[in-house]
C-alpha cells in the first residue's frame, strides 16, 4: 500500500473530522466535488454538514473562520491556490493574527494553502508565500516536505490554538509517496535532518528538500557529504538545529523556491551570521527563484526556480569558497 502526499492531507482531515466535532472544512469546491485537488474527496459525504462550499470570497471565508473559532470551532479553510490568499491576507494578518494579542482569546484556525510551482501553472498558480505570513507576528507557518509530515503536521495544525498557515506543495501532491502513515512525528518547531553530512549544510524546506537530497546523493559519489536540514515549519524556525548543523559542517547553503528578497533563506542566514558567525568557514550562500513572477512556459519555469542542477552548481561553488 502506498499513500501520496495529497492522500495524506485527506486522511489527516478525515481523522480530524472524525475525532473532533469542532472541526469543519470551508473552501471552494470542497463539498461534493471533493476539492480542486481532491484533498477533501468523499469527506462531505462521510461528514454531512461539515464540509461546506464557499463562494469565491477569500476575505469572507477567513473572516467567517475567525468568528467560528471564537465560538469554539476549529475551522480548516482551503484556499484553492496559495496565490489567491492575497485576497484574505488582511483577515489573516490583521484580524486572525492579532486576536490573541489584542483580546487574549486564541484563534485556532488552519488555512491550507496549495503552494509552489508545477509546470505550466504560471504566475498566479505557483507562488510560495510563506515569508509574507512568517513576517507578521501571531502566525505559525508550516511547510511540510514529506508525506508523513503532510499528515502529522496538518493534524497538529488543527490542534494548535493559534492560526496556522499550512503551506502544502502542489508539486508533491501526486508524485510523492510513502509506504504508510506515521504513528509519531517531530513536534512543530523542530527541523529534521533529512540527510546527515559533514562538508556542507543545505537548509531548505518543502519541495526543495527533495531537490537538495538529489544533489546530496549525486555529490556523495564525489566524496562530498552534504547535510540536508528540512525546516518543516518556518515559523517557528528551528534555529538550534540549523546552528548545530553549521557547527558540524562550517558551510551553509540555504535553498528556497520563493523570491530572494527577505525570504526564508535570508532569515536563516541572518540568524546564523548574527549568532554563529564563528561557526562558518565560508560566507553563507543562498539560492532562490529569480526575482520575477513565476513564468508559464516549462523552459522558462525550469530556469526560474532552484533545481537539482542549479543547487549542485551553488554547492560546488560553496565548497570552493
Amino acid at each position, binding site marked *: 500500500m502506498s499513500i501520496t502526499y495529497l492522500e495524506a492531507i485527506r486522511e489527516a482531515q478525515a481523522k480530524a473530522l472524525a475525532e473532533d466535532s469542532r472541526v*469543519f472544512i470551508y473552501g471552494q469546491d470542497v463539498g461534493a466535488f471533493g476539492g480542486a485537488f481532491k484533498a477533501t474527496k468523499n469527506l462531505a459525504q462521510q461528514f454531512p*454538514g*461539515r464540509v461546506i462550499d*464557499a*463562494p469565491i*470570497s*477569500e*476575505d*469572507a*471565508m*477567513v*473572516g*467567517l*473562520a*475567525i*468568528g*467560528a*473559532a*471564537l*465560538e*469554539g*470551532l476549529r*475551522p480548516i479553510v482551503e484556499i484553492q491556490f496559495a496565490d489567491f490568499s492575497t*485576497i484574505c491576507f*488582511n*483577515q489573516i494578518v*490583521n*484580524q486572525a*493574527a*492579532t486576536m*490573541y*494579542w*489584542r*483580546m*487574549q*482569546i*486564541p484563534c485556532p484556525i488552519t488555512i491550507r494553502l496549495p503552494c509552489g510551482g508545477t509546470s505550466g501553472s504560471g504566475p498566479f498558480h505557483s507562488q510560495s508565500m510563506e515569508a509574507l505570513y512568517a513576517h507578521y*507576528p*501571531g502566525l*505559525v507557518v508550516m511547510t511540510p516536505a514529506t508525506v508523513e509530515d503532510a499528515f502529522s503536521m496538518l493534524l497538529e495544525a488543527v490542534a*494548535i*490554538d*493559534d492560526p496556522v498557515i499550512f503551506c502544502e506543495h502542489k508539486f508533491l501532491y501526486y508524485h510523492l509517496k510513502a509506504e504508510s502513515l506515521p504513528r509519531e512525528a517531530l513536534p*512543530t*518547531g523542530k527541523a529534521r535532518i533529512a540527510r546527515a553530512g559533514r562538508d556542507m549544510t543545505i537548509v531548505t524546506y518543502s519541495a526543495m528538500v527533495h531537490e537538495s537530497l538529489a544533489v546530496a546523493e549525486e555529490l556523495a559519489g564525489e566524496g562530498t557529504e552534504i547535510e540536508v536540514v528540512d525546516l518543516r515549519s518556518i*515559523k*517557528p*524556525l528551528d*534555529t538550534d538545529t540549523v546552528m548545530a548543523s553549521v557547527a558540524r559542517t562550517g558551510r551553509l547553503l540555504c535553498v528556497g523556491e520563493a523570491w530572494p528578497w527577505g525570504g526564508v533563506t535570508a532569515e536563516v542566514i*541572518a*540568524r546564523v551570521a*548574527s*549568532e554563529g558567525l564563528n561557526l562558518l568557514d565560508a560566507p553563507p550562500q543562498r539560492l532562490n527563484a529569480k526575482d520575477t513572477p513565476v513564468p508559464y512556459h516549462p523552459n522558462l519555469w525550469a530556469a526560474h526556480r532552484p533545481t537539482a542542477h542549479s543547487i549542485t552548481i551553488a554547492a560546488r561553488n560553496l565548497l570552493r569558497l
Partner: protein
Amino acid sequence: MLRSVASQLTENEGAVQPQAFLEAYRWMLLARILEDKLASLYRGGKIHGGVYLGRGQEALSVSVGQSLRKGDFFAPLIRDQAGRLAFGEPLVDAVRTYLGSPVGPMRSRDGNVHRGRPKEGIWPMLSHLGATIAVVNGVLLARRLKGIRGSVGVASLGEGGTSTGAFHEALNQAAIEKLPLVLVIANNQYAYSTPCTRQYACANLVDRAIGYGVQGHRLDGTDLVECLRVVGGAIQRAREGHGPQLVIGELLRLCGHGEHDDAGYIESRLKQSPLGRDCLSLAKMTILERRWADHPQLETWRQAAFKQVENTIIKVQHEPPPDPYQEDWTVLASRHLTEMAHLERTSS
C-alpha cells in the same frame, strides 16, 4: 421629515414603548456626555492617538444595543458609543481604552474605539472597514452548526464601509447562508471628507438589498422613534429566520471624522436640513411633548450621567500606565511556539 420608505416592515411592526424610549434616551445622553468629555480631554492633550465620536448617530446606534438581547453578537464600529452602552459594555471600558489603561479590555495594546469583549458578544473592531462582518457571519454559522438557535448578529458600518470588497463578500456570504445578520449602516453623508456622491452611484444604498437577495430598510436616523421601530423590527425579522437585513439610517455626522478634523467640508445646506438635526435634542423634545418625563427629571438624569462620567475618568486617571518591562510580549497562545529568544537578540 424623512419617512421610512422602502422598508418592508408594516406600520405597526415594532411599535415603541415609552419605557424603552426613555431607556434609550438615557444611554444616548450618557454617550454624548462621555464623548463631550473625551473631546475636551483630547483638546487638553490627555489622550494619545485619535478620538472618534458618534455625535448625531446616537439614536441609530442605541437602537441596535437596545434591541439586541444578551447572548447576541455585536460588531460595533467607530461611532457606536450609545449602542455599546445599551448592549452592556461598561462605561469604564471606553474610558480605560481611551486613556490606555492596562486594566482595560485591550490592556493598552489597542486604543480608542478598537475595543470589545468578544466572550460577552462585542467584537473589537479593526480599521479595515467591512472586515468584521464576516466574523459575525462565522459566529452565527458556528452557532447553527452547534445547534444553537435564536441568536442575531449585528455589524455596524458607515456608508463609506459599504464600498469595500470585504463588505460585499460578507453580505453576499450571509445571504447565501441565510444567516440572522443585521447590517446597520449609518449613512452620515461623509466618509472622512468624502461625500456620498464619491462613495456610491446608486440612488439609495437600500437599493443594494435587492441585489444581494436580502431585506432592506431605510429610515430617518435622526428619529429615535423610527430607529427603535425599524432597527428593532429588522432584528426581530432576522431572529425569526428571514435572513440578513440591511438597514440604512440617513443622518448627518455632527462632528469631525475624528477630533483632529474640523469638518469644514460639510455643506451648510446639509447642516441646516432635517438630516442635520440633533437626534438627542429631538428625542428630548419627544419625551417632553408626550409627557414621558418632565424637565426636572431630565435634568436629574443629565446630572447623574455627568457625575458618572466624571467619576469614571477620575478613577481611570489614577490607574498606572503599562510598564513595557512587565509586559508579556507573547503573541501566540501556544507559548512554546513563540520565537522569543532569537528575535529579541536582533531587536531592541
